[in-house]
């Protein structure tokens, strides 16, 4: 069935995946396709960016109608920064891996967030380097064993916590086995102005899918704890009561967060009862999850977005890439009078 743009879901597909059958990354690609189809995204406005890795290959497998850039390992954030500066009308979907972001790319990841570059930043987190055949990544469980590389003695990096303290205004965590939630978070993220981080546990079925591994399917299926149910209300919906902005919410209560494009994100409290609008609560809940090895998923943190990088630079409304030449080159008189100053 065609969406508002007259496109079938199939039109949002990409090339045939070359990932291992069952790879978690493929299901995330599928959710991206559904999200774009549901939201009627014009593909020509979307850019797909990635680093290097199995995860970073996926932009070739969705949204064939969009420009894609599979850049270099760990440094896609800088490419995303430049591309969105060149054209701030673009909708940027960035895909990375835990190695790509947590190891070689950690610095760029943090600085992208600090600059609040408007991009949906998806980390397909499997705790290993898939493409180079299963070395531990910086998000691997402490003490975990892998057949080839033995024991991992180092503590995992929590890429959500890194984002929260780094100044991110939208931070979510999910599990690629939880299609519904992944899709809801994707929709919210696309509606967000500024960097939206999604750290999605995405099992590597070939190198890290043993049930003990917190990055495996079995573990995710048995241990995922949703912080809330998420419902996305398309722009146009009118909130029944003024949006709740403070205080933690009592049983059965609901938070509705309005995104800048009018989309509402409705969070229905579950037992965990986490309020994503509190930075300290976000830090606490992540710290707890880390210490107790809990796979807490949902919208971890949200705040009214601060200005994006482009906004702080006071750029023209017309994207820089589309300025016509008359605005790119000052006049001959301007040059002449400037020369006077040096005479």
């Amino acid at each position, binding site marked *: 069935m065609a969406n508002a743009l007259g496109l079938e879901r199939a039109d949002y597909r990409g*090339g045939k995946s070359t990932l291992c059958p069952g790879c978690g990354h493929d299901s995330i690609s599928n959710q991206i396709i559904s999200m774009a189809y549901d939201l009627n995204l014009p*593909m*020509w*406005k979307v*850019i797909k*960016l990635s680093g290097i890795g199995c995860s970073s290959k996926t*932009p*070739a497998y969705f949204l*064939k*109608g*969009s*420009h*894609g*850039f*599979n*850049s*270099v390992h760990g*440094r896609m*954030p*800088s*490419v*995303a*920064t*430049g*591309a*969105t*500066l*060149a*054209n701030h*009308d*673009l909708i940027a979907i960035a895909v990375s891996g835990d190695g790509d972001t947590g190891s070689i790319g950690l*610095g*760029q990841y943090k*600085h992208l967030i600090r*600059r609040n570059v408007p991009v949906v930043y998806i980390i397909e987190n499997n705790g290993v380097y898939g493409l180079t055949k299963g070395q531990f990544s910086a998000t691997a469980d402490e003490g975990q064993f892998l057949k080839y590389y033995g024991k991992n003695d180092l503590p995992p990096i929590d890429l959500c916590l890194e984002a929260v303290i780094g100044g991110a205004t939208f931070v979510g965590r999910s599990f690629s086995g939880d299609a519904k939630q992944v899709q809801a978070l994707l929709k919210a993220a696309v509606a967000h102005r500024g960097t939206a981080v999604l750290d999605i546990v995405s099992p590597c079925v070939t190198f890290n899918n043993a049930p003990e591994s917190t990055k495996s399917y079995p573990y995710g299926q048995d241990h995922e704890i949703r912080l809330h149910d998420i419902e996305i209300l398309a722009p146009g919906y009118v909130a029944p009561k003024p949006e709740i902005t403070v205080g933690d919410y009592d049983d059965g209560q609901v938070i509705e967060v309005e995104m800048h494009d009018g989309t509402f994100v409705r969070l229905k409290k579950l037992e965990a009862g986490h309020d994503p609008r509190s930075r300290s609560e976000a830090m606490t809940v992540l710290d707890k999850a880390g210490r107790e090895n809990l796979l807490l998923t949902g919208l971890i943190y949200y705040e009214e977005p601060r200005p994006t*990088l*482009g906004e702080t*630079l*006071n*750029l*023209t*409304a017309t*994207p*820089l*890439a*589309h*300025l016509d*030449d008359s*605005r*790119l*080159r*000052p006049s*001959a008189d*301007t*040059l*002449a009078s*400037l*020369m006077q100053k*040096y*005479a």
Partner: protein
Amino acid sequence: MVINMQPAVETRWERYQPGVNDFALMVATENGSGSQTSNVVLIRSLFKMGIPVSGKNLFPSNIKGLPTWYTIRASKDGYTARRATTEVAIAFNQDTITEDIATMPSGGVLITNKDLKYRVDRADVTVYELPVKAIMAQGEFPKDFADRIANMVYVGVCCQLFDIPIDIAYSALLDQFNGKEKPAKMNFAAVQLAYDWAKVNLVKQDSLRFEPMNETAGKILIEGNDAGAIGALFGGLTVVAWYPITPSTSLVDNILNHMHLRKDPETGLSTVAVVQAEDELAAIGMIIGAGWAGARSMTATSGPGISLMAEFTGLAYFAEIPTVIWDITRMGPSTGLPTRTSQGDLLFLYTLSHGDTRHIVLLPGNAEECFEFGWRSLDIAEQMQTPVFVMSDLDLGMNLWLSNPFTYPETPINHGKTLDKAKLEAFFEEKNEWFRYRDYDGDGIPYRTTPGTEHTRAAYFTRGTGHNDMAVYSERADDWMENMTRLRHKFETARTVVPKPITHYDAAKRIGIISYGTNDPAVLEARDHMAASGIETNYLRVRALPLNQEVWDFIDQHDRVYVVENNFDGQLWQILRMESPFAQSNLIALALGDTLPMTARWLHGKIVEHEEAL
């Protein structure tokens, strides 16, 4: 002065006699003591007197307190190369005064700050000693301010001793504080005091003086990095990402200075984005992302930054993304000497990144070319769809140069084969297809689209991995070879697109000189001297890599060709040898790389030495 070397064999050069409007001053002070202002005031004054002048700032890699030397050369004949020997030494730095005195030429003029501790044991020099504290004392200046302007004392004394009209010094001061009278007057007060003191207390014993002439009318004084910044802004620059590093920082500083020229008149919003990145890895990633998305992007850096940009440069080369990288070279390897000049990155830039890569490198030789290559590099990048390097150096970038005013770009902005919506539709009309990496015109240059083009078939996938001409991932050997062959063909096309060399050729002369960049003034001056002593030379100045046919022809036309450059390995000489279509037995490397701008005397000595040994 202690950092000066470049030994030259004894030659006719010795007969050179300083004279009116034809001598050099060296000012030795402390870094951060404000002497820079005094020195620039002296240069501006000579410039205003119509005397061809040039200055070289030899400063330390520190913020305050280390020795710094500034040489000012006046040359009635218009020579602007650095001179190793400076007739006048203004020794105002306690740490170096002894060596500064010891190393000055016989017959020179020594001006010292009497408040320092030193002994003058040189009967062969004229000495003027200035009681700086005492002089400053006369004009009750606020204490801290007094220290900062104490260096104006030697300005006043020089006006007196060498006949610089003091009102000209004042207008130079005004320029310096761009028109602000208050600071100008303040400083001028000190100049005046010293001027008057000298009138009364100094008896002129030397013959050195300046005299108004008319050689600078219509010219400007400007730093290369300023010129490059202006050029880029007139070249349609839209995205700059950079990371601070000496001596490239002032290029971006100057972009910020002039950015108002690119403000939208109505809204006051900017058409240029400047981002200070977290490092050079990020800076180049940003400009590549920007170039890919349709911006005219650039960065500026120096050696260490270039090394960090290697991998991304290979991506831009292979994925064919336009962007511009300025390398304002400093002395390497490694961190090296950040405040000393060199041409040591040439070969590395040319072959930057692993695998088989080759890059375009523009080589400006003066401020005018910094401006021109500033805009032209952005055109060439889009035209060739590849990263373009502009290699300047510390000497050109951070020193003041006498220059013609810049001429407005004669050609409109060139976006190369970039297909917007309309052009893409037309393309499909005509060809019924469009594939990103297909060579439609036989010049190796494909057509590209940018993201945000509202067309269902505008999209393609960019990658640094193997791909066929439809931009589809491929591991096939034939696809790989086809692509590499096209890239090489594109590079051959580049030879015809980059700036051609500047040639001074006379068929009668059998000796050639090939050089590039800031060696130009030394070469020009040395050629005159050599001609005077019977060694006639032709001269070709390379202005870009890859090299063009003109260069091979020039080599062919001569018995011997001296390849003159300011790096240790003779890197252009190596590139010439590795690329020349024939065996080159006639190329002689004259490579320097001693951290300082080349002097004509060194070059003259080298060539004469070699010629006489034949």
